[in-house]
């Protein structure tokens, strides 16, 4: 057996990427492709919304009036700030400023939890008034089909989004741990880049959900 093949045979598993930069480029490409597919997941809901809005017109606006504007707006502010701190954390890590990165990631998570808290408040408020999806809708002030369907869509869209927020926060918590343990550093932080990208997409989805579900007149 030649020396090279012997060396090959003794290797545990093939490493497709020799240098960290090539591995990073591959992971970055992979996350963008993945984000594209995540966007397509929401795309279907946006399309349904558009179709139903075309069918129901004014009913949607009447229904949206019952979504508390202050919760929606505050949540928008919260998520945008959270997104900023995620970008700031990455900036801090690249500058080698570990403490600032830790503080930023804590802010990301705190704001994300705040978002979920406000959402829960909103869901609780709605459910206690009988605003629920599909067959469970008992809101007599707006009995029409269009209003019921608006809220069914509302629950699906914000529900799927909230699931993504939960996943994103878990990722952020893991990243916080990594920065804390100095496993994510100035030299090696590709996971933070990927996690931040995911979090920004979660923010972008909400940026569109807010006007569609809260601001229509």
């Amino acid at each position, binding site marked *: *057996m*030649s020396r*090279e*093949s012997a060396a*090959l*045979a003794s*290797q545990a*598993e*093939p490493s*497709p*990427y020799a240098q960290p930069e*090539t591995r990073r*480029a*591959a992971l970055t*490409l*992979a996350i963008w*492709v*993945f984000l*594209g*597919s*995540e966007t*397509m*997941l929401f*795309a*279907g*809901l946006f*399309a*349904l919304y558009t*179709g*139903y809005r075309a*069918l*129901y017109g004014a009913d949607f606006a009447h229904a949206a009036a019952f979504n508390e504007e202050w919760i929606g707006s505050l949540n928008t502010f919260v998520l945008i700030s959270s997104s900023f701190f995620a970008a700031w954390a990455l900036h801090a890590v690249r500058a080698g400023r570990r403490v600032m990165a830790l503080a930023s990631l804590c802010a990301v998570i705190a704001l994300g939890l705040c978002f979920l808290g406000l959402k829960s408040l909103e869901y609780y408020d709605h459910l206690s008034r009988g605003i629920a*999806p*599909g*067959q*469970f*809708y008992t809101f007599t002030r707006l009995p*029409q*089909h*269009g209003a*019921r*369907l608006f809220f*069914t*869509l509302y*629950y*699906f869209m914000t529900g799927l989004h909230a699931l993504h927020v939960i996943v994103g926060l878990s990722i952020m918590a893991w990243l916080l741990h990594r920065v804390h343990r100095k496993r994510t550093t100035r030299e090696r932080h590709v996971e933070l880049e990927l996690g931040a990208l995911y979090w920004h997409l979660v923010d972008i989805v909400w940026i569109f959900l807010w006007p569609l579900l809260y601001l229509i007149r």
Partner: protein
Amino acid sequence: MSVDEGMASQAAPRERSFWTADTSVRSWLLTRDHKRIGILFLVGTSLSLALGGLFALLLRLELLTPDRTIMGPTTYNKLFTQHGVVMVWMFMIPAIPGIFGNFMLPIMIGARDVAFPTLNLASFWVYVLGAVVTLTALAAGGVDTGWTFYVPYSATSLSAVGWTVTGVFILGISTIMSAINFIVTTHTLRVQGLGWMQLPLFVWAIYGTAIIQVVATPVLGLSLLLVGLDHGFKLGIFDPQYGGDPIFYQHLFWFYSHPAVYIMILPGFGVISEVVSSFSHNPPVSYRLIVYSTFGISFVGFLTWGHHMFVSGMSTFDAGIFGLLSMFVAIFSAIKVFAWTMTLRGGAISLTTPLLYFFGFMFLFVFGGMTGVAVASESLDVHWHDTYFVVAHFHFVMVGGTLTAFLAALHYWFPKMTGRRYPERLGIASSSLVVLGFFFTFMPQFLLGNAGMPRRYYSYPEAYQWLNVLSTGGASVLACGLLLTLSYLCVACVRGAPAGDNPWGSRCFEWRVASPPPKHNFTELPDFERGAYAYAEEGGLP
């Protein structure tokens, strides 16, 4: 002996092949070797093909007589549903990419493996999980909604809708994982000096398919999620009782499912491109045309989903637009068909099993494709929709197209994967049985559909019986051909004659490594300077 074989025997003594590099069960089930994962997919998808085929045979047996033959109507409905679900998501979509994409693509670009080998392994086990969950539906009594899960029936049916949509959802995740891997692999692991326009056409086909998979499959996931929730909890997003619109489900479902048919056929096109060049020893008549038409199909395929909904009640305006757009997508397939035909011209033809499957493919796919253009015409589809005409159309392209290409790939790459030859005469015999059997299964169905026999019907008027009997006869011949193929391929795995590295004299890159390849694909990097279709340079056959 080919030139390549001669050179190989003078080289350094070989590494052990990937088959024997490590023989524990664990080393197979937890492998990160793309070749072994390809073999795992071969086992999984072949079992799925057998199961889906069994369901089909049972259906055809039932249809031998106008009324009850061997089963009741509910069982019949469950069988055709299960046949569709298993065939589409457990065989057609994962087979060629999962087996041959995994095995060949890294070798074809000079890489040692895919970009993310662990993700690759995970994609296989997620496939298994999805398959198990889908099949649990069988144990739970089966599902009878049709593979398309149309509301309102899928929301109200008492059958195992929940299990099935969950299983298919999981299978979709496996697809996306594989697709991401192939895209990143093709972008980042091409060997130095190998540009995009020098890639083998099979790589382009897998890459184009992966793009469709990443874009379309999430929409399927959403549709299934919504149907599942509607079925389980009456959340009513498509239920008119709660303000929903059932046609919107169809929009969402077909937005995925029309591109899905291109997911199923494009890898087959890639195989055909390789086979036609290798067995005519000619370069493709226009490499660029084939590459561009691949993307033409990938993109335009997304613009046509409404042609499945002509009679659903959607607006005639929208229907008209979709009908028009549907005409365009056929152009790209036609370009490929002409290109493949012209590639044969002036070539040194080796009449072998893969090439016979190529000829079968050309005839059956063109026939199926043309009937596709016919049903895409709204005024004609009004008569043919939900009849056996449509069933025949899609079986011609799916079975006559994809399955034939799959069988071509199996025979073409058999020597590369196993290092052995299959018995050529048995190959020729079985390919004849398969193509003829197929033709007599589905040609009568065009006539049945045109005469008005609806699809998914358990019973039918006696006048339709003789065509149904003919169809069942054809199905039996097709089954024999497939069983024969399975038998001799299994035997040849252990007792076939040694093949050498390049028994076909192909120029494509995978033939420049050992057959079968060693664990890390090659000891020394093969020559990638000489192109994948550089036949003319060597002046004909080796």
